[in-house]
């Protein structure tokens, strides 16, 4: 999507902002949609600058560290009850989340 936007040198449409908001399951007011359309467009056009760099002979990198093959043994460590205690909303032993539509 970034590539496409950079290519067409255009900002994000309101419709795209609404879709992104839906993906994140957040509601935006009309005012916010306008505001974020501008702000996110600015961020994306900034990527156009990176795109100008000549990367012809540079292999793509997928990881910043030089490490490979970090593995662990298949051995159980006790689960931490504190993990559950930090959950903000619970019902019995369940984690309570909004109902999804």
């Amino acid at each position: 999507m970034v590539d496409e936007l950079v290519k067409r040198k255009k900002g994000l449409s309101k419709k795209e902002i609404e879709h992104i908001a839906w993906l994140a399951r957040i509601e935006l007011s009309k005012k916010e949609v306008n505001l974020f359309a501008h702000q996110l467009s600015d961020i994306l056009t900034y990527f156009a600058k990176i795109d100008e760099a000549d990367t012809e002979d540079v292999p793509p990198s997928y990881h910043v560290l030089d490490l490979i093959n970090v593995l662990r043994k298949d051995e159980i460590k006790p689960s931490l009850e504190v993990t559950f205690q930090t959950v903000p909303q619970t019902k019995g032993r369940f984690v309570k989340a909004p109902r999804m539509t």
Partner: protein
Amino acid sequence: MSRIKSAEIKIGLEVHCQLTNLMTKLFCSCSSDYRGKDPNTHICPICMGMPGTLPVLNEKALEDATMVAIALNSNISDRMLFFRKNYFYPDMPKNFQISQYDKAGGVPFSLGGYIQIDKEKIRIRRTQIEEDPGKLSYEGTIESSPSTLVDYNRAGIALIEIVTEPDIRSPKEARLFLEKLRSILEHLGVSDGSLEGAMRCDANISLKGGRRVEIKNISSFKEVERALNFEITRQKSFIERGIIVGQETRHWDEVRRITVSLRSKEEEQDYRYFPEPDLVPVTISKDYIQKVKVKMPELPDDRMRRFIEQYDLTLQNAEILTRNKEMADFFEECVELYKNSREISNWLIGELLPYVRDKNVEIEELKVTPKHLTDMLRFIDDGTISRKMAQSVFREILSTGKMPDSIIKEKGLKKILDKQYVVEMVEKVLKENPRAVEDALTDEKAINYLMGQLMKLTKGRIDPKVAGEIMRRRLSDLTKGIS
């Protein structure tokens, strides 16, 4: 169904199997033994996606996946990456699932491969390693529930995803493919299909003249054939009425046994896949693959060939027995106890298998053991019971789990060898069926009816060969006018 030519149907499967032989989850050390446990007792900051935690790959999961790829004749990538699949849904506490991706520079665990079903090769597109999401439930019904209740014990359990090419031509072939896949995974010991939810499947299906429809949420392999049959009927009726079958995602409703349209607004690009920065790349050397290869147990196809050679079975019977690991194991345990392997194979395929199918149960849930069957076969050999009686003994074993000797004793099933008794019973049948006797005197075939009456009267406890001879002799006496 019969009106649809198989060449017009294209089915592809996307199978998710839990690696149930692992002690821990895919990226953390929580116990994977979550079934029947209280909700959220098998969680830690890693599988709950808390900030600052780092997932680390389970080395046994890599070995399992390697065995699976080898068994599926799939080419293992020399270097693999994990990707984040982003979506907002409470089944993943991180708001993304760690998976793999075949685009944007991503490489799945393995590419290509096939499973042989009879003479057909069903091609595999790819396999990949990913984590299972948590389990959602609702208070009351899904529509009226004020919130979603989540149990994260399953979140982070290791899955292997196996995607086929659309090579499958019928719902039955889909079932055979899944049975074979299950048998392979169980022979490898990496996944136990008898555990609830351990093997799940999505299917896509297109009929000639229609678009591809995806069916999600098929929670067990047994449901796949049913879901596909429903979908074929539905699509066919559309095509016949000139309505175009559009591309869509549907959901299999197990209770109502129908597929329902699923409104999904997320398209592939919405998942915003990108390389998982918390996990470093994994290289898989030829040397590593070789080391795993030598540790691999016998696979179903090899076992089938061994059964033919070692136990003198037909190709067909050997194939049926090895289609299910439990069945193949049961067979071999019987052979240890009783030498006539063909006889065992006949009983398993002719009697046990139909029962398992009919009752829709796993073999390990049955009350019958190899000792039950082989004891019973010995009673046939020494003449205690007839083959016919053995069938009712076997049914009794299946329903009660009692040993054959006590069933024979309780039911008074012992074969009656007393010839005088047989003669008396023949006389009784002849006397009670004068018209049938008349027929039998002129028509040889009518004797079958009298024999049937005789076996019924004696509850099948007499030797039909001896009884037949006596019956014939008496009838020929009657023709000669001797009464």
